[in-house]
């Protein structure tokens, strides 16, 4: 077979003819007619049709384009090469990878998350939540303008909304929401924050209770912890698949991650909604209140152009949730 000899000292190609016999390589230099025998050499692996290299201990090498000839000489093909080029294997591999990835994302990861999430001790959750409140109080929130009586009234109701035997120690904080505006959110340890602006927005107390119940739902389901674990899981999956840590900077691969993240939040919001409906039903409050306050929150967030950050936060289509609540309300009315 024909090849090019590169001596590793300069860039001059020297055409050679290579013959293989009795385990040794016989090389004839076409220009000078010089011949050489090599007993020691390493052959590079076959990858598609890139050149094959015979590497010698002195650092020189012979480049051969004719992979088939080399394979014949070796009397076999690299296993990897066979797998990578056989159509059946490629098709099978594609199916396998797609199915397994889908399974991991849709089944494996959620199951794992559900198993791991409860293992996280509540004390750890408190440690995580503390700095968040501190930062928010520093940066965003102001002191609440609600009267003590109002705060007490709502807090009493808040206690009623909790589960009898929850592992979490809840506390309700009232704040002036500042830039965040009308909102309520929960931290993983059971701290729930209600902004004055949401209080102002609501028509009645039941609407506020609906929102608080929704937030308690988030805590009980350990949504924050779960989403953290899921994120880590998805990141690991993609890192493993695509093999680089640099994929983070390659947005091309971050896209699927973002999509799974968004789908995940949608599910979490639905779970929190269900919890809210259950608790509200228990206390004989109509689901209509939930629907109403959701609509109002939706409208108000559209008005505030500052809230564009919240658009990218993962709240799924509000209208769906409102629809669901209205349906429930209809059912409740029918039953009564």
């Amino acid at each position: 077979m024909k090849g090019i000899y590169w001596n590793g000292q300069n860039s001059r190609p020297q055409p050679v003819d290579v013959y293989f016999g009795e385990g040794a390589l016989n090389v004839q230099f076409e220009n000078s007619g010089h011949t050489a025998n090599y007993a020691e050499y390493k052959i590079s692996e076959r990858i598609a049709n890139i050149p094959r290299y015979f590497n010698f201990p002195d650092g020189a090498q012979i480049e051969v384009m004719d992979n088939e000839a080399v394979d014949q000489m070796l009397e076999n093909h690299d296993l990897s090469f066979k797998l990578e080029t056989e159509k059946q294997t490629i098709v099978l591999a594609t199916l396998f990878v797609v199915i397994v990835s889908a399974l991991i994302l849709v089944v494996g990861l959620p199951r794992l998350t559900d198993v791991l999430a409860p293992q996280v001790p509540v004390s750890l959750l408190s440690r995580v939540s503390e700095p968040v409140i501190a930062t928010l109080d520093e940066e965003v929130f102001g002191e609440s303008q609600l009267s003590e009586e109002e705060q007490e009234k709502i807090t009493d109701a808040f206690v009623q909304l909790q589960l009898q035997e929850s592992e979490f120690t809840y506390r309700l904080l009232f704040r002036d929401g500042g830039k965040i505006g009308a909102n309520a959110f929960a931290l993983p340890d059971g701290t729930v924050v209600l902004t004055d602006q949401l209080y102002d927005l609501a028509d009645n107390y039941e609407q506020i209770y609906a929102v608080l119940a929704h937030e308690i739902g988030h805590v009980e389901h350990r949504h924050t912890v779960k989403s953290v674990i899921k994120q880590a899981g998805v990141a690991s999956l993609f890192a493993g698949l695509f093999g680089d840590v640099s994929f983070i900077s390659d947005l091309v691969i971050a896209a699927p991650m973002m999509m799974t993240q968004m789908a995940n939040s949608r599910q979490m919001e639905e779970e929190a909604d269900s919890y809210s409906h259950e608790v509200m039903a228990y206390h004989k409050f109509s689901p209509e209140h939930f629907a109403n306050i959701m609509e109002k929150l939706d409208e108000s967030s559209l008005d505030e152009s500052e809230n564009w950050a919240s658009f990218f936060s993962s709240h799924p289509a509000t209208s769906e949730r409102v629809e669901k609540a209205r349906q429930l309300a209809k059912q409740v009315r029918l039953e009564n």
Partner: protein
Amino acid sequence: MPGKNVQDKNDIAPVDLVQSRDVMSDDSFRENPPSREDSSFRDEPLQNVENTEPSLDADSQVQAQKLIRYRFKFHGNAREFFGIWIVNILLTIVTLGAYSAWAKVRQTRYLYGNLEFADSRFQYLAEPKAILRGRLIALILLAPYIYFSYVDPQLAGVIFIGLLLIAPILIVLANRFRFHNTAYRNIRFRFSGTIGEAYMYYTVLPVFAVFTFGLAIPAVIKAQREFKMNNTAWGANYFSTQASYGFFYSLMFLLLAVMLISGLALALGFGFLAGMNGALEFLQLFSFVPGMLFYVFILHYFNSSVFQHMLERSEIAGAKFETFQIKPGTYANIQATNLLAIIFTAGLAYPWAKIRSLTYLTENISVLSKVGMEHIVQADTEESNAISEEVANMYELDLGL
């Protein structure tokens, strides 16, 4: 020997090399036997000499200085690469990730091995074990940071600063590894930047830039790129780069302008997207796509602009680069459409996308050389420190630096 036009070339001095036409690198060996080594071993049919399209100026320059124009050719194709890629993912999954280093090596070898320049291919020589080691190290470095970012953000902040502080070391090691394991015509590349210098360019200067309210940022970036380029060598031949301050500053202004305009556009866009809230809900899942496309476009536009500029201002072994055929807008477009393809094929289009962007980049670069490629000489190894080569070869730190 079987009938070939073989002449003894050993006594042709470099000065005899005269080429005044553009030739495809494939053909340069066949068209003028007296000045080329005979490479008819390839047994390929003679190809037509293709007249490439460089400007008239370039042509007359080539005539006047008797330069030789070489082009890159990328032989990779999506079908082959897909086979390699998907089978390697399968093996990686089945081995729970252990195979990932071998997968990376095979893929990179495929891409390098299909890059042809002046009738020779590039080689990627890294050993999978070194890559595995590097990945474990990356994991050890990053894992605590990720863990603490959830549990104790302050500690995570400290770790982050720590990582920033050692970043220059990682940059040097990663570049040393990458270049040491790249070879062309059996001569390795080399990165000779020292860690001390790296600290200067990647820590001291950026900090200084902060104190100038960011005004010095383009200058610092220019210095960083020059540092990287000027410390890269093929054999004994170093790149020598002299970039332009004006270029980097005008690029920064362009970036600022783009951000301003896009800020306005985003505000308007949100109004539109918000209106979609009720009607097309499932599209919400894709609501981030326009933003990502935009980001990818801008990112690759600027990256390729800088890449083009640095190459255009570089010389190596008396050869210069022509990069005017690279249009950053086109390249950015390619990357943006790649992103779309990847999203809508659940990632399966990745190999196709990779080949596509690589082909564009490489086949639009040409090299003008005063001497033929075979007259480059390898470095004497006195310069290469044995220890640093060992260290260089130990870890492939693919941290995306």
